[in-house]
Every structure is written in C-alpha cells, then in structure tokens.
C-alpha cells in the first residue's frame, strides 16, 4: 500500500486519476468524478483494477514533479541501464474537435541505454469489479461494459492483454506512448498516440498560460499556483461544480471508520473558492462558482443544501461497498454521503461572504442572484436560533455551535453590506439589522467562556473549535481585541497536534470509535488568523512549516497523522488547497499594508 501522499493527481476538469510513484494508476472514475472506478485498487484492493507502467527490474525514483505550472506529471527512475521517464496527463480541452471526452496519455521514454519496462492494464468496473468484454480493433484494445467503453492504444509497444503484465523495451529513439480513451453512451473515438501526445502538449501550454494570470505578487506563489491549479482540476467544467476531493473513503485514521465519499460539491467549498480565485486574479472561475451555487441550489431555495452532486442533484443514499477492503484495511468504503440531509447554518455565511467579496471587487450582482441571496439571508434570520450539525457535520444531535452562529451573523452582515448597493426594502433592512445585532449579542454572551478567555465550540461548552479561527476575519469583533486574540491563542495551544498542526476539535469527541488526524485546513486558517491579527512573523513561519508537510508534488489531503506525518483522508482535498490560498492572500494583504518584509 503506497502512502496517500505518494499519489499525483491527473485530471481534465471532468474526472481525475491518481498515479503513484511506482507508475500505478490506482484510482480513475469514469466518465466523471462521481462515476464508477475502472481502476479502483486504491481502496478496492487488487481486484478493483489498475494500470501500471513501470521499469521491469530494479529501479529507484530520481525525480518526480509536475512539469512547470501544468497538470502533466513526470517521474524519472534510475534503472541499471538508463533513466526511464514516465510522463502522464489527461487532455482537458476536447471541445470543438472530434475527440473523446476522456483522454489519458502515458508515455515512457528513456535516456542512455534501452530499458526494460512492463505494462499491466487491468480495468475493472464498479462495485463488483466487473471484467470487460475485450476485443481488438486493429492494434487497439477495446474494453466494453454496456454503455461504457474504453480503448487502449499504444505505439511501437507490446501487444497488451488485459490483466497480464507484459514486458517491453523502451529505446532512446522510440518512446512508447499509451493512450486510454473513454466513451459513455456515445461512440468510442480512437486517438492515435502521436496525436494524443500533441494534445497533451497543447494542454500543458494552456495550463501555463492560465497560471500566468495568477497574481505575480502572491507570496509563496509556487505553492499557491499548485493549489489553484488543483482547485481548477477538481472543478467539473460542464456544470462548474467543485468536488471536495476526487476520492472516496481514504481514511482519516488508518484502519478506522471515518471514511467518507467526497466526490460531491459543497456550497461552502465553492464559496471559499470564489474568494480564493477572485483575489488571486481569476475572475471567471470565481463567477463560475457563484453561478453554479445559485443554479444548483435552485430546487431547494431558500434552503442551501449541504452538498450536491455535480449536476446539482440530491446525493444518493450513503451505503457501504461490502467486498471492498479499503485503504490500509480501513472499512467501510462508502459511496454516497449521509451528511446531505443535515441542517448546517454556517453554509449561508460562506455564500453571502463570497458574494460580498465579488460585489466589493466591483462585480455587481444580477437581480436574480440578489433575490436568491436575500432568500438565504431571510432563512438565516428565521432559523438562527435553532441548533445545527455545524461545519464538521457530526452525525449526532444538533447543538448550538458558536461557529454556526458566527456564520449566521456573517450572512446578515454581508447581506446588509451588499444591500448598500443593491435594492432592498427599508423594513427588510431594519429586520436584518435587528437580527444581526441580536445574534452578535447572544454569541458574545453565550459563546464566550471568560475562564478560558476564548469563544467555545458550542454554548456552555468547555471545548474549543478550530473553525472559530474565522473570528478575526469576519468583523464581529476587532481582530486585535482581547477576545479574538485570546480565542486564536487558546485554539493554537489547546488544539495543537504538534508543530503547525491542529485538531479541528478535541479528538475523539465526534461519537465515532477511534480517532482522527490533525485537520490541515485549520493550520492554514491559523496562519490566516495570525496574519489578520498582525502577527506576521508567526503567520509566515507557520505557513512555511505547513509547506514542508505537503506531498512531494505539493498536494494536501484533508488530515495528517501528527506522529508519522502521513497524509490522511480524501486526497487531494479542495478545502485544504483553498485554505492555503486564503492564507497566502492574507499574507499578501498584510505585506501590502505593512510594507515589504517577506517574499516567498
């Protein structure tokens, strides 16, 4: 079992694959992020299929990287005879040409002497690892499962047989390119390897041009660009939905039960993405997220769903895949997500705040958008007194989460700010003002524990909650006030998991057996909070420590084992990458306000 951080992300903004440093593609869902896996050995064991291209004998990894600011992954192995390089990626731009929606390209090339390699192509579809009906079309291998078909083309290489490792020789003059294309409910379109390689190269240039549009003064720009690129790769282009992660059931504790399906879109993540993209200079992506949010939530308005499918539907019921052994024996492997039915008050605050960021940046809202947002504010105004499941989606009784109340306050406050430039009736404005002030007063009174010198996880609780690190950002209290700084310090101290890592709440207090790792977005939120409270040096140090904990390819899972430093949870995780960008933006803004002192 490879460590989670060993995997690199390949993607085309419609689906994604995970490829390990031993050349094994162990996760690949088709035709979309939330489709069934054809290579699922990451959590499904060997029977779930994989696609491996690797040196045949002894080899060690010399280098592994994304090429420039692109989505093309490259790994070089030293073999006894020469250096073997695997270059791989997916083609994102296929519209307007006779190309399949999914093209995966993998090329082996060698420097020095010829090198021996092998290919193992073993696609197995879905829960029951269905073997394909296999036929050959010329030199191409075609695998079919009803309406789904997949072809494998290869130039100058071996005659591949499904499920059987096949050796071949790569010579310096003749790289060997493998192309996988997928068709779902449409004819299979074959792409020859040379054309596919050129398409990948064109895509690489497009990603570089895209990355060039990101603020050149962004601190820690390389990490921020990789995060933004990862966020874009995890955004489903046909609808604009951001998936939380491309995987299901990578565990929050190895051998544990906290294994969830994240191949859905959370409005909260979309909202955080709006701010991240907009402030990094990517306006189209930011507007795209807001449009998706409003369109996807249309059926449930004014209620904001907790999560949605890529096309805005209610997720299917959560269930476990019985035969799947899980990653590192972490069962159950789940599909679907049971959090969809929860009431979470905080989501509204994120959405209104994102809309305010857009308005504040000079992008007025369409009246339909403003109508929808007013509906959200009205719902918060009428339901803020109710307990909720909170941002962490704990599957127990609802409680009065302080973070949720803060976000309810934020929804009202940002609604009022937007209303300064958008039409609203006087009675409605006055009602919102009254409710906002009432929430503020209640949170100050019931959400703060004077003995701890901190706001708490819920009313009357002694526990802390790292989500409260939003406090310096929202404006309920001055960032330098004793209450805000006390809360930030208390969280830093009492939820510390060692080094820069934080638990999101006291471990083991979610009602599930076992424990979980440190929650990495919280560390970036802490860096952001430190920046907002003027503690620039601490913020930069913390940020740098977190950068050291990235995967070798600059990716982050949701959590990290504080003892071993192993990444845990679904991977790569959009929320962690969005938090990284937000922290970098906070450092940029702090630097701008205090003069140049640091440049990452």
């Amino acid at each position: 079992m490879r460590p989670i951080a060993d995997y690199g992300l390949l993607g085309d903004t419609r689906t994604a694959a995970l490829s390990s440093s031993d050349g094994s593609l162990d996760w690949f869902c088709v035709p979309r992020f939330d489709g069934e896996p054809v290579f699922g050995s990451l959590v499904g064991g060997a029977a779930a299929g994989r696609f491996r291209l690797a040196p045949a004998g002894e080899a060690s990894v010399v280098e592994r990287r994304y090429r420039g600011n692109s989505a093309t992954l490259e790994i070089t192995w030293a073999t006894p005879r020469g250096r073997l390089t695997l270059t791989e990626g997916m083609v994102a731009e296929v519209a307007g040409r006779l190309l399949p929606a999914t093209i995966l390209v993998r090329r082996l090339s060698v420097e020095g002497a010829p090198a021996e390699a092998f290919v193992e192509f073993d696609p197995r579809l879905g829960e029951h690892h269905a073997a394909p009906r296999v036929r050959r079309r010329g030199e191409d291998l075609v695998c079919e499962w009803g309406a789904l078909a997949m072809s494998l083309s290869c130039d100058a290489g071996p005659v591949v047989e499904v499920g059987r490792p096949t050796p071949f020789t790569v010579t310096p003059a003749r790289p060997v390119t493998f192309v996988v294309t997928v068709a779902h409910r449409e004819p299979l379109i074959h792409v020859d390897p040379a054309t596919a390689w050129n398409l990948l190269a064109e895509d690489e240039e497009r990603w570089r041009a895209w990355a060039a549009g990101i603020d050149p003064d962004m601190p820690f720009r390389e990490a921020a660009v990789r995060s933004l690129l990862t966020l874009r790769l995890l955004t489903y282009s046909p609808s604009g939905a951001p998936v939380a992660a491309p995987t299901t059931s990578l565990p929050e504790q190895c051998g544990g039960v906290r294994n969830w399906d994240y191949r859905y879109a959370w409005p909260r993540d979309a909202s955080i993405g709006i701010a991240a993209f907009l402030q990094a200079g990517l306006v189209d992506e930011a507007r795209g997220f807001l449009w998706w949010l409003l369109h996807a939530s249309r059926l449930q308005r004014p209620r904001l769903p907790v999560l949605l499918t890529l096309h805005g539907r209610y997720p299917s019921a959560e269930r476990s895949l019985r035969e799947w052994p899980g990653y590192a024996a972490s069962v159950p492997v789940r599909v679907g997500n049971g959090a969809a039915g929860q009431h979470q008050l905080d989501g509204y605050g994120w959405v209104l705040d994102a809309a305010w960021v857009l308005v504040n940046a000079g992008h007025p809202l369409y009246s339909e958008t403003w109508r929808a947002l007013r509906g959200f504010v009205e719902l918060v105004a009428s339901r803020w007194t109710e307990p909720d499941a909170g941002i962490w989606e704990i599957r127990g009784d609802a409680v009065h989460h302080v973070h949720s109340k803060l976000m309810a306050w934020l929804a009202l406050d940002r609604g009022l700010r937007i209303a300064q430039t958008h039409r609203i009736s006087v009675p409605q404005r006055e009602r919102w003002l009254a409710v906002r002030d009432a929430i503020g007063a209640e949170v100050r009174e019931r959400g703060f524990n004077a003995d701890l010198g901190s706001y708490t996880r819920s009313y009357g609780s002694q526990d802390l909650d790292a989500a409260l690190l939003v406090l310096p950002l929202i404006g309920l209290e001055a960032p330098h006030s004793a209450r805000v700084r006390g809360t930030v310090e208390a969280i830093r101290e009492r939820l510390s998991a060692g080094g820069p890592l934080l638990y999101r709440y006291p471990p083991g207090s979610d009602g599930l057996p076992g424990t979980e790792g440190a929650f990495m977005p919280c560390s970036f939120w802490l860096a952001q909070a430190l920046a907002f409270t003027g503690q620039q040096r601490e913020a930069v140090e913390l940020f740098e420590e977190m950068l050291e904990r990235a995967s070798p390819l600059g990716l982050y899972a949701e959590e990290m084992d504080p003892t071993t430093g192993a990444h845990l949870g679904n991977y790569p995780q959009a929320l962690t990458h969005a938090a990284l960008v937000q922290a970098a933006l906070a450092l940029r803004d702090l630097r701008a306000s205090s003069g140049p002192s640091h440049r990452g």
Partner: protein
Amino acid sequence: MDWAGWAVFGLVATAALTAVMTTAQLAGLTRLDLPLVLGTLVTEDPDRARLAGFVIHLGAGQIFALGYAAVFALLHRATWWLGGLLGLLHVAVALMVLLPVLPGLHPRMASHRAGPASRAVLEPPGLLALNYGIQTPAVAVLAHLVYGVALGLLLQAR
C-alpha cells in the same frame, strides 16, 4: 387550417405551458427554466434573458401550434385527447432531441465535454433533461399535455 384559431390559441397554449413550467420551477420540482435557457441565446443577464426567452418561447410555441393545427386539419378532427397525444409526441421530441442537441447550438451552454477554457455557464440538460432535476421529465410531460389538450380543445378541425 384554422388560421385565426392558430394565431390566438397558439399563444394561449404556449402561455399555459410556460405557466406550468414556471409553477413547477417555483415549487422546486425542476430547474428547467425555458425562458432563461432560450433568452441566454441573446443575453447573459438572467433577468433580461427571461424576458427575451419568453418572447422566443412564444414564437416557438406558435410554430409548434402550426404543426398541431395542420395535423387536426389533415385528420379532420380536433379533440382534447388527440391534442394530448400530439403533446406527448412533442415532449418526446423536446426531451430526447431538442434539449440534447442544445449544447451544440447554445453559446452559453456547456457540454459534457467542456474544459477549463469554457466560459459557458449553463449546464447541459443531459439525458431527458435530468441534470435539471429528477422530476424534470414528469413536469415537461405535464406541461406539454396541457399545451396539446388546450390546442385540441380550442382549435377547429378545418
């Protein structure tokens, strides 16, 4: 052909169809917003698009009503059930032919092959427009039945 009936009742039936669709949309049964989908052919502002789309939809409704009137004239009978049958045929064509090909025509509608360069913001309807909500086919069938039955009752068979 009942030209006078076509001119008047085509508009009435299209308005009724639009009313059913809009009611279903407001009731949270579907995200299919025909005036928005059609109007965004000409503008990206959703509010202006709805107005433009309503006009386009009325025009399209008139064209379809012409087909209904022609069938009634050919069969020398116009009844509510015949209108309903034509409505079923109409909705089958709309859901299985017209909406699926729309991403190829619509400048602001993405297709399932859209990539990062796409600036299209309307998501594709998908099979039977299910991407706009699982009840969308049922709502569309009901709306077109209303349209067909209205024309069957109101148009003359001449």
